[in-house]
């Protein structure tokens, strides 16, 4: 057992130097371990990592300087990001978390299957940790892989309370690697998060400096002609939506960090030529979705959300807020490589370097062009035959993609009417002889990335003033890399590539289905499920032991990472078969996806969008699992 001594580390350094180290260089050349030699952590700064079974974590506020302007960060043991916790599968860990803040605090172990009172959500799991108090978390670690932890209190995650968790498998790693590094991505802001939230409520497009201008209009006319440009502007104008709305908070407020280091500070990790290097990517951002690549290297994805997957080799992957991906790279050349994580809205990037020697760095690529949302992302059903009008709506990239439409596949078609008429449970995904097929996308030009299907119903609250868009035409499209990554010439990971090794945790067919629509109102900055904010909704009730299906329909034009606490989300392929096990499922605009959940975790759990300001604005539900919890045959 290694016990971390907080006081010793802190005493050696002045307070200022201490936090500066935490702000930037903390993980530099750190957090890696040489697995091959069997040595313990070879970190340059051992304060970055804690291991063993007993942990004392102290949440505090400290001055921090990320951008040149002094700010107060929320730290754990004086560190931002919080220290890496290294556990072993099978151990029972005890974490004594002391709150030295003036406000309540909490820590949630993201992706960990733990008893409800250990889950760390104030109001549901426990009462939070009062100022000055200590809460002792104790649970058995029955899983392995890459996870993370963060505060579940207000905006403390945004101000720095997030850190990595790496759990060694009991029987050794499935995929051997000589080096092992955590790459924790995050978004730092000098602006008080309360102010960001209030600003979004007052002017929701405040942080978008990429709206379409008169100049863009002129360019589009030159490229597409006047009539198509007008058709495009007419379409968006009628909807009163904005095709440039890719992120609510952008690089104008954020500095993107890699292991706490700004792009300039350049977090650096060492390798020797020919070694296999495991990179454990964690997106600990509050509001940022990253597109990650390492120019010159193929990325072999071996785990998603801590769960080993059949290895798949790609050039690039999108990592939504709260997701984790383990990637193995094999740098063959004796040179530096840039780890490049650009924000989905292309307003900034996090960057680090893999290098055989200190002091080297590689070229930092230019950010990709910023994409526009398309009618497909809006779930537009009307005028689909009139493809002429459509062309005007795409940027070049998306226009090409419309040409490559997949007329053949019919994913998810069989449950097209599951809402209109409560289908007998379990629903038969294999049965394609469903009446809905006749008028599903077949007769129309289907949208790209898998056929789309009409949405048969929306909830009453979705017709109210708190919801600004409803998708009429949705697609499952697990093979869609998402807006901004389509047809970019690189092999981009999609959910269709992910296959969890070992199959689902529960082979039963789901006994019922809960359909939830991801909804919101951009202009009013209201976010919700089924048009109802947390305060307006009743908890979802799961019956202990049941296997059920959650179907998410994203009616909004934003991408939402949806996180269910306490239970795995086992994503289904379009044919209903098991695809991948995740704790956070990213849902693209106008996407309809389903996952199975085994309600084997008694207690009250949080279920929410992991974009922090969406959650705070109401995109949150309580899930209650109890014996006989759900009314028989209940159909949400």
């Amino acid at each position, binding site marked *: 057992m290694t016990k971390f001594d907080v006081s010793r580390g802190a005493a050696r350094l002045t307070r200022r130097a201490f936090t500066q180290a935490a702000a930037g260089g903390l993980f530099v050349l750190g957090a890696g371990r040489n697995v091959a030699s069997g040595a313990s952590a070879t970190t340059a700064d051992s304060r970055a990592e804690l291991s063993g079974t007993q942990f004392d974590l102290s949440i505090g506020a400290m001055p921090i300087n990320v951008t040149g302007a002094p700010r107060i960060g929320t730290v754990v043991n004086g560190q931002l990001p919080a220290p890496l916790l290294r556990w072993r599968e099978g151990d029972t860990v005890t974490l004594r978390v002391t709150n030295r803040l003036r406000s*309540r605090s909490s820590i949630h172990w993201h992706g960990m*299957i*733990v*008893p*409800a*009172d*250990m889950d760390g*959500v*104030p*109001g*549901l*799991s*426990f009462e939070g940790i009062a100022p000055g108090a200590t809460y002792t978390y104790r*649970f058995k670690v*029955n899983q392995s892989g890459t996870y993370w932890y963060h505060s579940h209190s*207000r905006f403390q995650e945004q101000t720095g309370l997030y850190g990595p968790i790496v759990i060694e*498998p009991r029987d*050794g790693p*499935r*995929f051997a690697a000589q080096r092992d590094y955590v790459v924790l991505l995050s978004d730092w802001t000098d602006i008080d998060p309360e102010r960001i939230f*209030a600003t979004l*409520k*007052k*002017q929701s497009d405040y942080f978008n*400096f990429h*709206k379409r*201008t*008169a100049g863009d209009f002129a360019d589009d006319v030159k490229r597409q002609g006047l009539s198509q440009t007008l058709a495009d502007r*007419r379409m968006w*104008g*009628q909807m*009163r939506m904005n095709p440039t709305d890719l992120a609510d908070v952008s690089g104008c407020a954020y500095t993107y960090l890699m292991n706490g280091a700004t792009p300039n500070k350049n977090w650096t990790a060492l390798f020797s030529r020919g070694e*296999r290097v495991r990179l454990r990517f964690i997106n600990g951002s509050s509001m940022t979705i990253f597109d990650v690549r390492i120019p010159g290297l193929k990325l072999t994805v071996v785990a998603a959300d801590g769960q080993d997957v059949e*290895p798949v080799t790609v050039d690039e992957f999108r990592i939504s807020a709260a997701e984790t991906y383990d990637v193995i790279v094999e740098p063959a050349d004796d040179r530096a490589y840039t780890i490049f994580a650009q924000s989905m809205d292309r307003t900034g990037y996090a960057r680090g370097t893999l290098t055989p020697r200190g002091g080297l760095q590689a070229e930092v690529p230019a950010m990709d062009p910023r994409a526009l949302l398309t009618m497909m992302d809006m779930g537009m059903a009307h005028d689909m035959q009139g493809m002429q009008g459509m062309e005007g709506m795409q940027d070049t990239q998306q226009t090409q993609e419309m040409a490559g439409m997949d007329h053949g596949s019919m994913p998810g078609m069989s449950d097209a009417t599951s809402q209109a008429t409560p289908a007998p449970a379990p629903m038969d995904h294999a049965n394609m002889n469903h009446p809905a097929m006749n008028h599903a996308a077949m007769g129309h030009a289907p949208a790209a990335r898998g056929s789309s299907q009409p949405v048969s119903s929306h909830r009453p609250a979705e017709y109210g*003033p*708190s919801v*600004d868009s409803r998708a009429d035409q949705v697609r499952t499209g697990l093979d869609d890399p998402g807006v901004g990554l389509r047809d970019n010439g690189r092999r981009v990971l999609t959910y269709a590539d992910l296959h*969890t*090794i*070992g*199959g*689902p*945790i*529960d082979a039963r067919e789901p006994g019922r289905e809960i359909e939830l629509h991801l909804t919101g109102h951009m202009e*009013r900055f*209201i976010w919700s499920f089924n048009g109802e*904010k947390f*305060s307006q909704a009743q908890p979802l009730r799961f019956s202990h032991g049941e296997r059920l299906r959650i179907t998410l329909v994203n009616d909004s034009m934003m991408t939402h990472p949806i996180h269910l606490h*306490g239970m795995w989300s086992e994503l289904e392929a379009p044919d209903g*078969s*098991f695809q991948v096990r995740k704790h956070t499922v990213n849902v693209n605009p106008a996407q309809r996806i389903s996952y199975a959940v*085994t309600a084997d*975790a*008694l207690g*009250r759990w949080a279920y929410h969008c992991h974009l922090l300001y969406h*959650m*705070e*604005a*109401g995109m*949150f539900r309580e899930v209650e699992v109890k014996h006989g919890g759900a009314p028989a045959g209940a159909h949400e």
Partner: protein
Amino acid sequence: MSATLRASLILVCLGVAAAAPAQEENPHAHYMMAPTQPAAPSETHHVPPDPPQHAMRDMSEEEMTGLMEMDDTSAFFMLQANSFEWRSADEQDSLSWDAQAWYGTDDNKLWLKTEGDRTDSATDARTELLWDRPIARWWSAQAGVRHDIGEGPARTWAALGVQGLAPYYFEVEATAYVGEEGRTALRFSGEYALLLTQRLILQPQLEFNVFGKNDPRNLIGAGLSDTELSLRLRYEVRRELAPYIGVAWTQRYGRTADLARAAAHDVSEVQWLAGVRWWF
């Protein structure tokens, strides 16, 4: 998943494992399967969590959301001077403003709106206190009171209107008023933001007033009384702070025009203006 499917999945896993040694020449073979551990079916591997030892005590919803610090019903406050400007005219220069403040939640807000101008000799102002409630996707209903002060006697009205976003992003306010002695009025305002660049924004605005009854002491005639068409070019130094220049053309009509003439005011005037738009 059917038992057959599950069995075949396990078979596939085992098959891959068995195939791995045969692929030793393949440099990527080590990815294919665990050397140490065959793929354990997740079903047996997964351990459900123990039930919680400490159930949450009963508490009110307020207490719960208080602990969560996640209040999606919280209130916000905004103060905005849509325009705050100096206007130069042949007759007399004036200070002119159009400002509003609101406080409230997603569902209910209290709005205070004030618009007016002040010259050396007089102040004209319309002030409204309104309750605002969203009624449709893009529209809020607003109801309350309006109080006008000017050269003539002050007037008070009951107000009922809508405010929102019309297609093509036109911001629209349309309000009907009922005053004392059977007076009625309608007011409409529409504006648009044309982005020349991300920060340089051209804002055309149209306003008009209709009155149901003559009010000669306030130089108001029944019918369409006046229109104002203005154009402002602002530069958003920050979103919250945008100096601008512009021009406004005011036209009075019908009896209102007659009354203006009689009082030696302009019936039609063009004013240059410069000001600052700001909010917080």
